[in-house]
């Protein structure tokens, strides 16, 4: 009796295990069905009941707790390697030129500036009585020092100042001159910088965050920047806050800077608290944090709304996802093949599955937040499998006996590199491309390996995402065949090359808009990549923090940080 009972259990358990493994096999072959999902626009949901603010938050009458993910402790602009250190450093270091909520330049440390008629000479006029947080004066000498150190041969940070073409910077780097000819300190409040080539971004590049010469330049000798490492953890700047304490992996604490030029910030203490996606909603709910960015889905938005005390902003992120074509491969050189691959991919379905309404298809190689974004005359490449098939037939790729197209004995087999094992593109592309006779082979690997393969040209398709985009040139630069190191995809189009260099040869925005309009048309007709998606972000903050607008251009660290107030 007992034996039979036990064997019955064993049988049923193994049956369950068999069935469940069968289940997963079926799922991967199933057609991915996406219901009609409507796209969600940008939204601003105001707090309905600020009195519901949690007690823990209400008790903090003089402290604003913002959220950060992984600061690394390198609190020095131009030298940190980790984007989060940028967030942590912004409240401490002010720039000559700041940004308004739309990304336009406004005066910060510089009260005004002049640009010569040939757009090559920039003169910044500093405000009177500027001081660093320790009371030492901030003058044009500090600006000159900052720009000089960026041209030091040992500088290995993220800012490539050579794109500004400051006169005399090459001579300084090579050791032929002891200072940079083009940087001239006219008087303690005026600095004049002469460049040799027009760059529309120079106003903000040259007018960036200012480092103290007395503090950071004390032991400076050309060619040796190691001494700065000792100063990473103890920054000195002229921003609204100065650093109080850094607790690795936990918090970065700041106190208001009495010497801030626009007046001491009304909120005495600022804390950047380390949070993770697992618990950031709970931390916000219980008042441990006053703001954060959350998972972009309906459940989270509904929950944030239900709190009552939260202002919620759903806005588009200034980046886009895309798939590289390896334009050096012979079978991808033909533009009709590339066009066919875009027509043959149901990108709307990918967006629906991946973002469930919180994303949209990208058709222009820039983000909707950049001023050059313009959909006039752009081919949207609506999903059309018959058109894709026609293009491939016309290009000489005939369907073989196994269903895969071939030409001159070569099969149209494309490898696809991605870092996500749950990449939504994989099942959809495999199905769509099979229908038009293209063999799609996904390969999943970690990021560094993918970049290594990308640089070696060992791929056909590769899935990537741009960084945050501010200027139209940011994203199209890599399509110029003249920029050999950025151009990983091997794309070469003389019309595009000409338009890309024209785009940065003038400062006039109206002229640039026209140039980029033409460029986008060309890049759509001869596509270097498959554009995939724009996505939304969900940010929320406790309405007790007045004056904060947490959108994707100006977050917590914006130029108006010192103007925020707490009203419990």
């Amino acid at each position, binding site marked *: 009796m007992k034996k039979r009972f036990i064997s019955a259990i064993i049988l049923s358990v193994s049956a369950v295990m068999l069935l469940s493994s069968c289940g997963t096999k079926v799922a991967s072959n199933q057609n991915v069905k996406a219901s009609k999902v409507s796209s969600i626009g940008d939204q601003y949901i105001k707090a309905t009941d600020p009195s519901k603010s949690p007690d823990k938050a209400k008790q*903090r009458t003089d*402290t604003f*707790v913002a959220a950060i993910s*992984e600061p*690394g*402790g*390198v609190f020095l602009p131009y*030298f*940190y*390697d*980790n984007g989060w250190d940028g967030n942590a450093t912004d409240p401490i270091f002010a720039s000559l030129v700041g940004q308004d909520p739309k990304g336009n330049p406004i005066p910060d440390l510089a009260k005004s500036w002049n640009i010569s008629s040939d757009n090559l000479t920039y003169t910044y006029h500093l405000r009177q009585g500027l001081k660093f947080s320790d009371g030492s004066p901030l003058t044009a000498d500090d600006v000159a020092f900052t720009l000089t150190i960026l041209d030091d041969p040992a500088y*290995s940070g*993220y800012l*490539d100042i050579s794109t500004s073409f400051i006169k005399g910077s090459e001579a300084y780097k090579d050791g032929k001159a002891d200072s940079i000819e083009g940087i001239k300190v006219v008087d303690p409040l005026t600095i004049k910088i002469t460049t040799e080539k027009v760059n529309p971004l120079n106003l903000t590049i040259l007018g960036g965050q200012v480092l103290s010469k007395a503090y950071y330049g004390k032991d400076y000798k050309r060619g040796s920047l190691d001494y700065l*490492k000792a100063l*990473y953890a103890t920054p000195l700047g002229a921003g609204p806050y100065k650093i109080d304490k850094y*607790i*690795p*992996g*936990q*918090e970065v*604490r700041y106190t208001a800077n009495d010497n801030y030029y626009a007046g001491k910030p009304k909120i005495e*203490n600022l*804390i950047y*608290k*380390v*949070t*993770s996606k*697992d*618990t950031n909603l*709970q*931390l916000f*709910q*219980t008042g*441990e*944090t006053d703001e954060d960015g959350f998972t972009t889905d309906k459940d989270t938005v509904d929950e944030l709304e239900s709190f009552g005390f939260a202002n919620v902003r759903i806005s588009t992120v200034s980046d886009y996802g895309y798939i590289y074509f390896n334009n050096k491969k012979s079978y991808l050189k033909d533009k009709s093949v590339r066009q066919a691959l875009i027509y043959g991919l149901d990108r709307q379905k990918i967006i629906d599955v991946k973002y469930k309404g919180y994303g949209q298809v990208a058709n222009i190689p820039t983000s909707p937040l950049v001023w050059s974004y313009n959909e006039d005359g752009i081919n949207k490449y609506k999903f059309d499998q018959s058109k894709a098939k026609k293009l491939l037939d016309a290009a000489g790729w005939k369907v073989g006996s196994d269903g895969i197209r071939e030409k001159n004995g070569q099969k149209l087999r494309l490898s696809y590199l991605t870092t996500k094992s749950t990449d939504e593109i994989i099942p959809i592309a495999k199905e769509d491309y099979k229908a038009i006779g293209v063999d799609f082979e996904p390969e999943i690997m*970690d*990021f*560094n*390996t*993918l*970049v*290594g*393969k990308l*640089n070696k040209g060992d791929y056909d398709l590769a899935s*990537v995402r741009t*960084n945050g985009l501010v200027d139209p040139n940011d994203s199209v630069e890599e399509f110029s065949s003249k920029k*050999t*190191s*950025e151009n*990983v995809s091997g794309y070469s189009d003389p019309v595009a090359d000409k338009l890309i260099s024209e785009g940065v040869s003038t400062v006039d925005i109206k002229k640039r808009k026209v140039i980029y309009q033409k460029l986008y048309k060309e890049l759509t007709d001869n596509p270097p990549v498959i554009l995939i998606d724009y996505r939304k972000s969900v940010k929320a903050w406790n309405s007790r923090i007045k004056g904060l607008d947490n959108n994707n251009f100006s977050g917590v660290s914006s130029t108006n940080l010192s103007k925020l107030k707490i009203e419990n």
Partner: protein
Amino acid sequence: MKKYILRRFIHMIPTLIGVSVIIFYLFALMPGDYIDSNRQITAQRAHDLRVLYGLDKPIIMRYFIWVKNAMEGNFGFSLKYLESVTKLINQYIWNSFIIAIVTLALTWSIALVIGVYTATKQHSLFDRLVTLGVFASLSFPSFFLGLLMIKFFGVDLKILPLGGMIDTGSTSTGLSYVLEVIRHMILPVGILTFLSIGSLTRYFRSGMIDALKLDFIRTARAKGLKERTIVFKHALKNAILPAITLLAFELPGLFSGAIITEQIFNWPGIGRLQLEALSFRDYPVLMTFTMLLSFLTIMGNFFADVLYAVADPRIRLK
């Protein structure tokens, strides 16, 4: 005895060397290096950086440079954090250590008591309930339990903190700081203890049951000794012997950090540093940390051998 210890100690050295060679080569052979992770820099800059960091030299040379530096106590500079590896690891490893050692102490004491008790009262109701609890502990994934407890104790009941090592903006020092950290440790230690207790309890239980079946126990009972003396003095000493080896092998675990638990509780431990260093190919950190764990494992093995010889006279006399 001394010869035995000396022999075991000398055996450690070639093992250490061999391990360091293998680890170094495996990491060096991984495709993609740290410079690759930055897509923005020009090819010239990438080359210059590689020369700067010594990544362009052949692997053998890089290994000996590393060994020479390690002998001097210089374990290199983290490529990502731009500070010395020893300083970086030191900042985080002790946070993981305090969680691990408290968990270890609690797990072992509780598992010992429960294991012994259920062995003496085999097949009783208590034993069956404990078995159920053990299987529960072995089945729950740590993140699920962690998030559930955070919601229950942190959000609903509001009696325990939601994570981190200290309260937000806390400036407490001395005793109040210690108490605050302890308060924050309750949930992560509790969860880790619950999850580890299962297998250890079963281990002690079966060890005790086997010991209680031995002949000399029957003799002791026949002699009329108290049951308590039999269990705790005679049987337990024999049952614990294999556990000594287990304890010694816990040594590397004290310093390796519980990656998932640390992530959920925002505990600034070494687990996250490890993962990051791996995905960013931060070689100096990876090498140093892996060597540290290997060294601790080898040391643990050595201690296990020595302790076993101390505890069990039969080994000593061999």
